[in-house]
Every structure is written in C-alpha cells, then in structure tokens.
C-alpha cells in the first residue's frame, strides 16, 4: 500500500476563552477539535460530517495550518508540517487549497473575477505557459463560467456561479489537497447538484484528494469514498462510505442517519426514527467519558467514566463501548 498523502494524528485545537468570575477572569478552553486521527490517500475524498459546532471547520483549517494546532501531528506528502513556520508553509500552499462555504463573503467584492482567480499565480509567483490571463480563461471555462466575464465583479454572479469562482481559484495551481468547507450548503438543490458534479469531475480528472466538509449526509454519501462522523471535536466513526451507510455501528451515526428525511413519502411513513433527546453539550465543558453519553439511548455506567477508543468494528472504526 502506498503512503497516504495526508496523515493526521491525534490533532487537537483548543481555543482560549474566559469567563468573569467576580474580580477574576477564569481561563477556559473551547475544545473545538479534541484528538482526531485519519489518513487520506491520493485521489481520495473523505467526507467530514457532524452537527453545527462539532469542529469540522476548525479541523479543516488546522490541517491546512490556517490555524495553529494545539497538539498532534499533521504529515503532508511525507513531511511533518505541524510546527512549520508560516514562511516555510508558503511553498507548500501550492498543494493545499480551501473552498469556503459562503459564496457571498468569500470573494473580495472589489476585485474582478479574473483578478480573484489569478491571485494564486501571483502569490506563488507561478507563470503558466501562455500567461496568467490565458490560464485563467481556461480555468473559467473548465468550471463552467463564461471566460468573457473575466472583468465582472462577484456581485454580478449568482450563488452557484460564485462557488464556481471559488473552485476555479482553488484548482488553479493543481493542488494535491483541497479542503472544501460546506461548498454547497448555501446553494439550492438544483444548483447544488451542478456544483457537486463539477467537483466530482475535477477530482476525477486531476486526481486531487479532497476533505469534503458538510452537515448534509446525503451530499456526503454521494461524493465521498470514506466518511468520518464528528461529534464535539471527536471522530465517532470512520469507514468506507458504503459500509457506514449500510451498516452504521456508532449510535450517533445511526441516529444521524435516521434523522435525515428522504424524498420518498412511502419510505418515510414506514420508517422507524430514533429521536435524540436534548441538545449538543458545550465544547467548553464536554461530558466526561464518551462525549455522546448525554444523548445516547444505549448509555451505560461505563460510558460516563471511560472514554471509548476508536476501534475496529466490522469494517469500520468506531468509538463506542456498545457498538451496534
């Protein structure tokens, strides 16, 4: 087996916050990402799912070193980049790109589309054959934008088109890794399908590895080779997509799958639904033991005491004392 493109080991990111207690400020930590590990192969898509606030964005940005990790290790292309200084990161950034969720705020409104897409060339001082302009026009064509719109501004485009601009910018330097942070969440279904197909095609053509962050399980299932389910900064279950969706082992995965309504009225009528109680606990004060224990329907005494390890169950890796 070949070496993975990206190897993440026990990655942690704690954000400091504070609370006023009388005359003192008590220092607290938001445990946004709390020890996640996985490998990503070349050309593979890993889906990262979980509810709002579980640390998906933080994980994605920390992996790209846009945020400094608190602990753990990130090995990219055989090189340990965990503590690499920003200056030394710059040449590596050619190979790692990000696509943002919000197609409205991610693009500078005062720059033309051509300028936005050519920015990576300028930053990295890359001069493609035939010049930047020609390359940008080709990129625009490739993501389904009319190259004649080179001099237009982002506000002249619809949400789906802006997301295409973001994608063009991300693939400009032919990166090896793209972190796509909820790239289709803000889009309507009919447009969402266009963008998913585009990402799918580009990946097949260029063999890019993608970390695809989303909260919509249907989208993740569609696009990913493997899926990691996150909850309160931890990975609950990670498995090949078919395995995860056909035989979920973690109670949280099961509940999540059962909560997603499907566009199939007959199926919906006959479906048994697991409805979780309560809300997500705060990542400042996550529950002891298994972080899911406050909402789990299989909870036993040990779940409140001992943190379950990510262990192999069937074809998946699962962090649960009582996997299905």
């Amino acid at each position, binding site marked *: 087996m070949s070496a993975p493109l990206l190897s993440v080991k026990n990655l942690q990111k704690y954000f400091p916050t504070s609370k006023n207690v009388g005359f003192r400020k008590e220092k607290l930590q938001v445990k946004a990402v709390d020890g996640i590990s996985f490998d990503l192969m070349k050309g593979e898509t890993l889906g990262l799912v979980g509810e709002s606030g579980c640390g998906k964005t933080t994980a994605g940005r920390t992996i790209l070193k846009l945020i400094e990790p608190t602990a753990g290790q990130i090995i990219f292309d055989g090189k340990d980049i965990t503590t690499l200084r920003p200056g030394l990161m710059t040449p590596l950034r050619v190979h790692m790109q990000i696509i943002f969720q919000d197609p409205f705020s991610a693009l500078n409104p005062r720059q033309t589309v051509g300028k936005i897409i050519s920015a990576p060339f300028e930053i990295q001082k890359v001069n493609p054959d035939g010049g930047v302009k020609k390359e940008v026009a080709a990129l625009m064509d490739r993501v389904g934008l009319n190259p004649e719109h080179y001099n237009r501004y982002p506000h002249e485009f619809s949400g789906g088109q802006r997301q295409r601009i973001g994608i063009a910018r991300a693939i400009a330097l032919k990166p090896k890794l793209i972190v796509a942070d909820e790239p289709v969440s803000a889009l309507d279904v009919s447009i969402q399908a266009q963008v998913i197909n585009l990402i799918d095609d580009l990946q097949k053509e260029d063999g890019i590895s993608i970390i695809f962050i989303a909260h919509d399980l249907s989208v993740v299932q569609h696009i990913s080779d493997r899926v990691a389910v996150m909850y309160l900064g931890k990975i609950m279950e990670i498995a090949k997509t078919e395995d995860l969706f056909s035989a979920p082992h973690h109670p949280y995965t099961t509940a999540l799958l059962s909560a997603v309504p499907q*566009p199939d009225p007959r199926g919906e009528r006959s479906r048994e639904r697991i409805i979780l109680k309560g809300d997500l606990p705060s990542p400042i004060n996550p529950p002891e033991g298994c972080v899911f224990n406050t909402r789990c329907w299989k909870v036993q005494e040990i779940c409140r005491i001992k943190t379950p390890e990510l262990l192999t169950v069937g074809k998946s890796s699962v962090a649960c004392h009582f996997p299905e």
Partner: protein
Amino acid sequence: MKNLLEIRDLKVTFPTDDGLVQAVDGVSIEVAPGETVAIVGESGSGKTVTSLSVLGLHNRKLTQISGSIIVKDKDESLDIVSAPLDKIRGYRGRVVSMIFQDPMSSLHPYYKIGSQLAEAYLVHHPGQKEAANNKALEMLSLVGISEPKVRAKEYPHQFSGGMRQRVMIAMALMNDPAVLIADEPTTALDVTVQAQILQLLKDLQQKLNMGILLITHDLGIVAQVADRVSVMYAGRIVEQGGVDDIFYNPHAPYTLGLLKSVPRIGRAGSERLKAIPGQPPSLINLPTGCAFAPRCEYISLAPGDSCQTLKPDLLGLADSHRSRCHVPEGMRDKSFAAEIKGART
C-alpha cells in the same frame, strides 16, 4: 367552507427601483383541519412572500396585492387581502399563527420568555394576566421544555436554537389557532434537532387538529410530513397535488428536475446527479412564456414555440393533481415515468 384557509389567485408585486418584482403570481392553496400542506421551492420562489400575505404582514403602501385569502374563524370568515387592518390584527396569532425560520432572531432579546408568551394571549384576552401566565407555563411544558416555571423567567439568549424554536411554537399556539404557518421552521437547526421539532409539530397537530401550512425547500421534509404539496417556481405554482402524486408521479418538468437532482441516501453513491442546468430567472423580467423554459429539457415535446410565447396554465390531471406545462399530458406520462423510476432506486 370546510377549509380553514383558502388562498385564491394571490398576486403580490413589489415596486422597486429596478422595476416591478412579481414575487407571487396567481397562487391558490387550501388548508383543511388536521392537514399539512407544504409549499416547496427554491430560494426566491415566493414562499415567504406567500406566507406573510396570509397574516397581512406586507406593508400595504409598498406592495400591490390582489386575489383573496379567506381565513375561517368558527362561523365568521375574513378576506385578509381586503379587510381593514384592525380586523386582521384580531385574527393574527388567534386564528392563524406563524413561526419563522430563524429562532435566534425571532424572539425579542430583552423580554423574558414567559412575558413574551403571555403577551400573545393577552392581546386577544385583554386583562387576563393570570390566565395568560398559566397558559404560558402550560404551553412551555407542552412543547417539551422542562421546568417551565424557571425557564419562563429566562431570556432568549439563555436558550439553545432548538429550545427557542420550541418557544416560538409554544407562543404560536397560545390561543389554540386553527392554522399554523411554519416558514422553514427547521432550516436553521441541526438534523437531530430538526427531527425533534418535526415530531413535536406532528404530535401537536394530532392533539389540536390544526391545519399546518409548511414552507420548506427540503424535499425530504415534505416527504416526511406533508399530505399535500405545492411546488413553486419563480412565483408560480408549477405543480400541486397529494404527496404521493408529487413524488411518484410528477408532471411538471421542474418537479421532475428537482427530484432527480437531490442526492439520496442509499442510492449508489457513484451515480451522477442529474442537475438542472442554468439558474432561476430574475423576477423583474420574467420570460414571456413558461418561466422554466430556459432550463427545461422538454421544450421540444411542446407544440410549436408555445413554451417561449405562452404562459402555461395550471391544469388538472386527476383528483386534485394539477400541473403547469405545455407538453401534452400523454407524452409527459410516458417519458417521466421511466425517469422517475431511475431516480428512485
């Protein structure tokens, strides 16, 4: 009239600096007791504008509204489009209630939960403070908030998103309304919390026999809770019918396109999604013919250039199933049936 709510040929137009925005164009929808009627459509299709019209919440000076919206209250009924505003206020929150998309911003940040709830009762029962407070506590526990007495004294920011949406529901139900309008009630929530709220709405509906007008862009939610569905595109209803009709026997190319473009759990992941090309039209310069024509794959089946020149009518198929398309029904039946089969497996 057996329906609690009858919207007839509703048209809503906003004059703006760029021109007239025809946000809603000839929408007709009915809601009967105990029934959930869904309006589904993409962003900007006119769902919220329609629902705000039912409570008369558009600024009348800045909006042109025509058609009628009949709301039934016991033996009386009222046309929201033409009735005087104080008459409408007597219906708001008492006969028809509404909950909104964003529970974070829909509660007043400076008033206690309990007093916001009580106020909803007091408007329609002036002076009955004690009854209002009791009703507030009763409703809070009905929507599953534990320790209602304590929580009633708290402020909205002390509640999570899901809890706030429960509070909004409790507030909407303070006067046992006949109809509840829910405008994307779970869009801002996580799926597991969404499942809780949808379940809650269903339970409450059974208990109180309310009619629910549910607005959403999520076909999964429609499939889960709706009895009847109206699909909107660019301010018009393009298809209307029972939930099974819409999902298993769609007749408008747009409905079919939507159904084909949603990724589904369980379907082979590697299969390509069938996206609808292009994007929705601007409401200011709608195409003269069918608004969907620029994106439609079935134009060639329609007679002549009718798609580009004539607005199709919303025509009946069977029972209450109606759709808007120039392609003769017989031809649609055959080619759609095969496609929808493909999409469902």
